[in-house]
């Protein structure tokens, strides 16, 4: 059955020819109904999101595959953020996964087996791959300093860079850009990102001087860098523990 590191079975959604996801344009009546009901609902959890960063992510099973990501985070406390990840910051953005970010302190409390699934953030922040669109560096600096010492765990549920027009398959574990061959983000992707946002990664680099990574860099995180092994997920059929017949 489906595996995160395998190419999907050919189907209209895997054709990759069109850019848009499959489906008809949203009807006006749908939009009106949606907006009307939204006014009656409180939506508190999503209103907690206050952080937006743009960076790049790589597939754990194929780190040479890079993708621009837009991360919208809720800072739950000084040590933890829960984030929704999209492929752009437009109203047409696709939800492509979820990332959790923990401080060095929380990260060190995890078991080594768990730590293997996490990645560091210092490199991408130090070379300004990670940017805070429309937020001046001086305002973003305290948050960047915090994030540079953090670790993230990102599951990608839609391999949109492959051209999938629907979210096919099972989640992929993602890793962060790293200062090794496969982990250095393709310059054309950075250029495209910079042009779209009217920024220059090169010009931002000096403002990242003095931002340091974790006090003691964990040697289990960024597992692929040291051990040249990534992680793929497989779905297996099994007996379901039931309370009643299913389906």
């Amino acid at each position, binding site marked *: 059955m489906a595996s995160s590191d395998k190419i999907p079975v050919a*189907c209209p959604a895997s054709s990759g020819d069109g850019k848009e996801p499959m489906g008809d344009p949203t009807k006006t009546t749908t939009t009106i109904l949606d907006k009307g009901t939204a006014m009656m609902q409180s939506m508190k959890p999503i209103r907690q999101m206050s952080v937006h960063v743009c960076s790049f992510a790589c597939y754990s099973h194929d780190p040479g595959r890079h993708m621009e990501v837009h991360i919208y985070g809720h800072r739950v406390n000084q040590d933890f953020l829960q984030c929704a990840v999209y492929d752009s910051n437009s109203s047409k953005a696709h939800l492509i996964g979820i990332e959790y970010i923990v401080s060095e302190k929380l990260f060190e409390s995890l078991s080594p087996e768990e730590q293997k699934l996490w990645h560091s953030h210092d490199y991408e922040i130090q070379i300004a791959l990670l940017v805070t669109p429309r937020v001046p560096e001086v305002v973003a600096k305290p948050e960047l300093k915090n994030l540079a010492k953090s670790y993230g765990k990102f599951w990608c549920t839609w391999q949109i860079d492959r051209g999938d027009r629907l979210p096919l398959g099972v989640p992929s574990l993602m890793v962060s850009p790293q200062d090794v061959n496969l982990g250095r983000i393709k310059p054309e992707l950075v250029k495209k990102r910079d042009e779209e946002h009217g920024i220059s990664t090169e010009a931002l680099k000096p403002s990242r001087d003095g931002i340091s990574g974790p006090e003691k860099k964990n040697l289990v995180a960024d597992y692929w860098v040291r051990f040249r092994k990534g992680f793929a997920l497989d779905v297996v059929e099994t007996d379901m523990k039931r309370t009643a017949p299913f389906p």
Partner: protein
Amino acid sequence: MEKAVHLSTKNGPKVPGEPTKTGTSMVDTAASAVQSFAPINQIHQHLCAFHFYAYDMTRQVEAHHFCGHINEDMRQCLIYDGPDANARLIGLEYIVTEKLFMTLPDDEKKLWHTHEWEVKGGFLFMPGVPEAIQRQDLEKVAKTYGKVYHFWQVDLGHQLPIGLPNIMMAVTRDGQLYPEMIKETEKQFGVSMDKERASRAYMKGPDHGIHPLANGGGKGLKLEVREVDIKPVESVPRVFV
């Protein structure tokens, strides 16, 4: 039969960590004022429903979906374990019409579940919205299929999102969901699922009926992790001139 272990945000374990320092939160507020949150602003709907683990129906979770339309045929949702500001982001769901579902390969169809009984049974509702208005949209949802992943096993009391993702499934017939869990939700949101069920009797599921491969094809589904070798960038085939 084990009782449901379902932890609402009120009772669940707190996320460990220091309270957000003033400096950081000031940055966040100033930042959000100027940033583009367009993707989040597309989220227009809050749905409350229940999920269980695709390999273990006895583990059931109240799931709060915050959804937006990608287009007329597809929605994308963030899933939280409660409706309040302190809710934990535990997963996501994609919802597609039957039209899109039918284009999926067989193995992919198994990862998706039907919404027909969730809606018709009254288990899925939109907090805060009068029932008659809810039904205008929910009659569409009843015909759709969803794919859910949870990344945080809050029902096990995990303080942090450790472990692998889990495929989740939804209720497909009576007798699956724990009555006490349903009663608690009804009380919290002031709804009556039995009453709503009667009002939703007119709704129809997918035009072609529930696909036999959906809902795991009736089997349990579990995700397992496997180490893979990373191909070195130097592995370019040698060319003999």
